[in-house]
């Protein structure tokens, strides 16, 4: 029961070690706290923008667990969002659970799905894993469309109130947990194991790393958070609609955010979310469709010129930032 150690009351040393999380983690924590404190005073329109920015960031961190930390490209990641949303919609619609509490169901669906899928698909490497995950997402839409209990092509329409603050705090909590988990995973023994897997999976095995279990662990985390975010996202539109819930666009945006920000880093997904979200939202109102050209161009540029993403490249080329950015 070693892993339950953290349940004991914190000591002074623990509190001191919390202070030593480093400037990047501090920076993110302060930003999150400021956002949480300021949210009630923000007007509705900017608040919705902020909510979707956090949804994007939470999706980016979810993708970062698997793609950023292990290098496995989860092309069909939207499947966790989509089925998480359906799980949430079902308990809210038929069992009349509270929309907020049911977000946990969305997360649970994502977690179980990732566990089940991961056991099979994480055996594939490189492009084969990406294809397997893409096929899963495509299959999931068709299974949902053919399931009358899930509303078929119409989806699940709920009549929930307009509660931007609840949406905000729900996604805020998910994001905060994700950042904390990312920090915990990257700063410990597991972080070394994951970097080894990303570097050379065969060598990792022959040095004693149970690569299957470690990959499955981060994939499950990834599914858990994507499922929960899918639930909140569905809550903001008061329903779950098959074409939107499984839109491959989300997979692509998640990948874009991780690549642009800096895969495997602590700050990267947040930076990527901001950088991808701005053109995504701006062009949606000005020239719908142009956002894809801009984001696509950005991803191509980054992948070609600075493959380590914004955060990774800043670390590499700006020596002062090396000890600060992670």
């Amino acid at each position, binding site marked *: 029961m070693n892993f339950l150690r953290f349940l004991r009351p914190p000591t002074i040393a623990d509190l001191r070690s919390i202070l030593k999380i480093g400037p990047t983690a501090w920076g993110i924590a302060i930003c999150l706290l400021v956002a949480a404190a300021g949210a009630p005073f923000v007007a509705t329109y900017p608040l919705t923008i902020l909510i979707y920015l956090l949804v994007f960031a939470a999706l980016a961190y979810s993708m970062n667990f698997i793609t950023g930390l292990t290098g496995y490209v989860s092309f069909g990641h939207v499947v966790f969002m989509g089925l998480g949303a359906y799980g949430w919609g079902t308990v809210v619609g038929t069992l009349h659970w509270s929309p907020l509490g049911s977000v946990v169901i969305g997360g649970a669906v994502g977690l179980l799905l990732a566990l089940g899928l991961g056991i099979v698909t994480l055996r594939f490497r490189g492009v084969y894993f990406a294809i397997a995950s893409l096929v899963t997402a495509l299959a999931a839409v068709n299974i949902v469309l053919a399931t009358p209990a899930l509303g078929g092509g119409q989806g699940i329409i709920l009549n929930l109130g307009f509660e931007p603050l609840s949406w905000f705090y729900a996604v805020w909590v998910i994001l905060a947990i994700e950042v904390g988990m990312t920090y915990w995973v990257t700063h410990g023994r597991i972080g070394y194991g994951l970097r080894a897997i990303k570097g050379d999976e065969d060598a990792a*095995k022959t040095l004693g790393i149970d690569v299957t279990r470690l990959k499955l662990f981060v994939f499950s985390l990834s599914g858990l958070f994507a499922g929960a975010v899918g639930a909140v996202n569905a809550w903001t539109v008061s329903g779950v609609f098959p074409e939107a819930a499984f839109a491959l666009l989300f997979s692509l945006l998640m990948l874009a955010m991780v690549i642009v920000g800096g895969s495997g880093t602590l700050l990267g997904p947040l930076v990527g979310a901001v950088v991808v979200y701005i053109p995504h939202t701006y062009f949606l109102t000005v020239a719908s469709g142009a956002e894809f050209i801009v984001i696509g161009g950005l991803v191509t540029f980054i992948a070609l010129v600075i493959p380590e993403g914004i955060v990774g490249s800043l670390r590499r080329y700006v020596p002062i930032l090396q000890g600060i950015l992670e």
Partner: protein
Amino acid sequence: MTMALVAEGIHKDFGGVRALRGVSLSLTEGEIVGLIGPNGSGKSTLLNVISGVEKPTAGTVTLDGRRIDGKPSHRIVGWGVAKTHQIPKPFPGMTSGENVTVAALFGSLRRTDLRQASEEATRVLRLVGLEAKAGTLASNLTVQDRKRLELARVIATGARILLLDEVFAGLSAGELREAIELFARIQKELRVGALVVEHVMRAVLTLSHRVVVIEEGRKIAEGTPQEVVRDPAVIEAYLGTEAARAAA
């Protein structure tokens, strides 16, 4: 207690190719056994079977009487048997120090404390003479240093039996002498056992207490280095029938 590794009647088929056809060998902690044979004779396959990278088609591998054949390699490492890679496989984005730290964290020592593991890594890097490169990215190391890193990593797992797949290949004459001395010193200090697969005869003959020769997946000779080099079957395998007749 001294650890003993025993492989018995190992067969390994790859489709129609019979890479190993009943090879047996044993090795105890503290002992260096050389494994030699012409190209394609099955040396690396045998190491892969012992280390759990491949499952044998038939035969058993036991460690202190416990069956380890067919077990996943990460568990075999946990029991104290670790293998280097013929072509070094460093984790490119990590420094040498971090590469070795991984081994200390996940090997049979299972250090859970990061500081302890990195201290262990520093100690092992010093042992193999790589301490000056501890902060260098593994992708920037020279071939010679990559081989040292491979060695450092298996040592840092805490393995009592090392399986070394051509760690002396591709080195210049000077580097080779240095590497042989280094390994002899390390082995003396740690008292580990080692199964050394090698093409470089000088390395095998200098280091090994015992040499096993395989050809086409079968063991053709076993004995001290002096006995083995005089064995007609070995001379035939390496140089052909004519040479064997001339030697006899």
